[in-house]
């Protein structure tokens, strides 16, 4: 009962934040609604007993990614329009809406008609951080190292791209 209440509250936060991202006309308001949606997703992770993922979600998405997006928005001037007009739909929004509706129909229909092979006894145990750490550094060690190198390369590349390579030689 209380579980369902918390789930619907979090789902309202997540979907309300996401709808605000899409529908608000001011892009700074949209970026701030994105943070609300991310925090709701962290709550959903907590409901699924993924406390480590919830912490990472808060740190990386609601922290780092949100700060990056807001910094980029602040570095980009608003052009000729006014601020309340910066998050508009393009001229092909009818086609985009049609594609979205078709995709939504296919997705929801397949979701409803599939019978998932559920586990019979899902145990809601205590924290699993040590298990995740063991898996990450034994079974998935190769992917762990590769993704570390990928992140380093991507961040160095982002700095070089943003700096502009042509105007300082």
């Amino acid at each position, binding site marked *: 009962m209380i579980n369902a209440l918390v789930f619907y509250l979090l789902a309202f936060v997540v979907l309300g934040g996401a709808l605000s991202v899409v529908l608000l006309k001011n892009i700074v308001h949209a970026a701030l609604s994105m943070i609300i949606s991310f925090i709701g997703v962290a709550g959903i992770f907590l409901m699924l007993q*993924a406390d480590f993922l919830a912490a990472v979600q808060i740190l990386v998405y609601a922290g780092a*990614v949100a700060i990056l997006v807001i910094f980029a928005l602040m570095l980009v001037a608003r052009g000729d329009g006014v601020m309340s007009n910066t998050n508009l739909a393009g001229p092909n929004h009818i086609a985009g*809406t049609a594609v979205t509706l078709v995709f939504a129909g296919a997705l929801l229909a397949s979701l409803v008609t599939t019978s998932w092979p559920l586990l019979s006894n899902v145990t809601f145990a205590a924290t699993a951080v040590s298990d995740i750490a063991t898996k990450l550094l034994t079974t998935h060690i190769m992917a762990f190292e590769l993704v570390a190198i990928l992140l380093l390369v991507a961040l160095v590349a982002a700095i070089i791209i943003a700096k502009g390579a042509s105007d300082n030689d």
Partner: protein
Amino acid sequence: MISIGLTHYLLLGALLFIIGLYGALVKRHAIAVIISIELMLNAVNINLIAFSKYMADKVFFGEMFAIFVIVIAAAEVAIGLAICLVLFRHRKTLDLEKFNIMRW
């Protein structure tokens, strides 16, 4: 009162993905498209962790995938925003309708 099961989480993930897809297809500001892609990645993470909990408990494959998705999303948003800054420096706008220089 029905109890919350896998279908609820999958439905939430599907709705979040659909909202993100709509934003990515329709918006004309480049940073708004990046934000919408982040929403879609979050929807995928909800699905992965729900599957991991309800279909393969104590194996943590879904959690592993979600961790790697988060890391790669962070790399993607850093590169994407850097490209946005360079685009704005060159063209003085981020309106995607103006970026048709590669049309045939």
